[in-house]
């Protein structure tokens, strides 16, 4: 087993075992989606119209809040120092951690989205569009959040600062995610246009995220 796959397996096992990460994110997603109809009233037509936006906002907030667990836990017990001094390139190591984080935090959100779409009176076409855009966009949220997590890893109560730092960088993902969902439902723009840009944003974050996070970790922990 190579070092990277061992790191990935370790993170997957930890996230599932410790019991917090995956399900707390989905729970927060559920709470946000439940709160919105309380705030704006039960008008089903209105909820169906802004449903994709509510789902995307809930997924974004749940992703951001779960970012705390990405690097901070390893920094606390010293595993991060071992990862820093290992022979595996640091960029690949943090990319593996981010991948594990997305698999255990992002994918449950994608699976929960269709169920929550029922609460918002979304029809199957809208639900499918939202799920597909979430699938394409949540990796961007995780890998961009990786940068913020690396910058604030040594801070003890850096949770909210992490969200503040990452939020402006995730705004394009949110914009194009909702644009793609709405394009599939109402048009007039073809679905492919914003969806391609969303995929491009994810691909860019897959490169820039680990690079910037590795630089931040090297600078921040010595």
């Amino acid at each position: 087993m190579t070092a990277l796959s061992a790191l990935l397996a370790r993170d997957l096992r930890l996230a599932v075992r410790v019991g917090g990460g995956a399900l707390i994110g989905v729970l927060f997603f559920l709470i946000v989606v439940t709160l919105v109809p309380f705030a704006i009233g039960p008008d089903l037509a209105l909820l169906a119209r802004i449903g994709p936006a509510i789902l995307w906002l809930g997924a974004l907030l749940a992703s951001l809040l779960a970012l705390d667990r990405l690097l901070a836990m390893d920094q606390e017990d010293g595993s991060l120092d071992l990862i820093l001094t290992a022979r595996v390139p640091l960029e690949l190591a943090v990319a593996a951690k981010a991948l594990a984080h997305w698999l255990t935090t992002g994918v449950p959100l994608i699976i929960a989205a269709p169920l929550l779409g029922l609460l918002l009176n979304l029809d199957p076409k809208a639900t499918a569009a939202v799920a597909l855009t979430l699938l394409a966009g949540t990796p961007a949220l995780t890998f961009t959040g990786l940068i913020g997590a690396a910058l604030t890893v040594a801070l003890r109560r850096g949770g909210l600062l992490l969200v503040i730092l990452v939020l402006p960088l995730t705004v394009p993902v949110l914009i194009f995610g909702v644009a793609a969902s709405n394009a599939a439902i109402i048009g007039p723009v073809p679905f492919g246009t914003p969806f391609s840009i969303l995929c491009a944003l994810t691909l860019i974050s897959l490169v820039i995220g680990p690079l910037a996070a590795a630089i931040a970790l090297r600078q921040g922990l010595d």
Partner: protein
Amino acid sequence: MSLIELANPSRFLALTGRALPWLLAATVLAFAFGISQIYFAPDDYQQGATVKIMFIHVPAAWLGVFAWVLMSVAALGTLVWRHPLADVAAKAAAPIGAAFTLMCLVTGSLWGRPMWGTYWVWDARLTSVLVLFLMYLGVIALWRTIDDPAQAARAAAVLTLVGAINIPIIKFSVDWWNTLHQPASVLRLGGSTIHPAILDPLIVMAVAFTLLFLTLHLAAMRNEIMRRRVRTLMMLQAGARVRP
């Protein structure tokens, strides 16, 4: 006088101490000249005298963006060239850039109400400048949260470079998207499209604002250097108290 000779903080303090009064005088003169130019500039045939908000709004926008570019260069100075005063420059520039960006947003909003009928619209230019303002606040928060100035400098440098992607987005947002904000009329291929009667006061005000930025920035850098010296002295004093 090369950049590396200025790297000595004491040298820098001495030089800027001598230069700042002159810079301040130049700033005041430039503003006086600029305001007189504004007074004699003609009214717009459509907007009337309201067009003169442009003489504050546009330079403030230019400087808000310029400050982030300066911070990005300083970030490279910290991470790549290890220039000793690069992080001081970055830390000093952040609140000034944030203030200019806020001024741009507020004056633009006040200008939009009579002209567009709304204080705010979520078009590409306004949204990207608002995101820039949020990123300024994020960098300032990061500076203040990490205790050790050197470590804070490196973290802020990485964040500044990552956020620099927003700068071309701001500049080209009016070309790439259909925006309510007007397209580029000064810095564009094919030359400016503004009449010299309005363009000249605009350039004068831009120079005045730039001198203001320079003055404030150098003064803030001096303050930051002295703040760090005070911090070191306090730490030494605390250490001396512990040891008998």
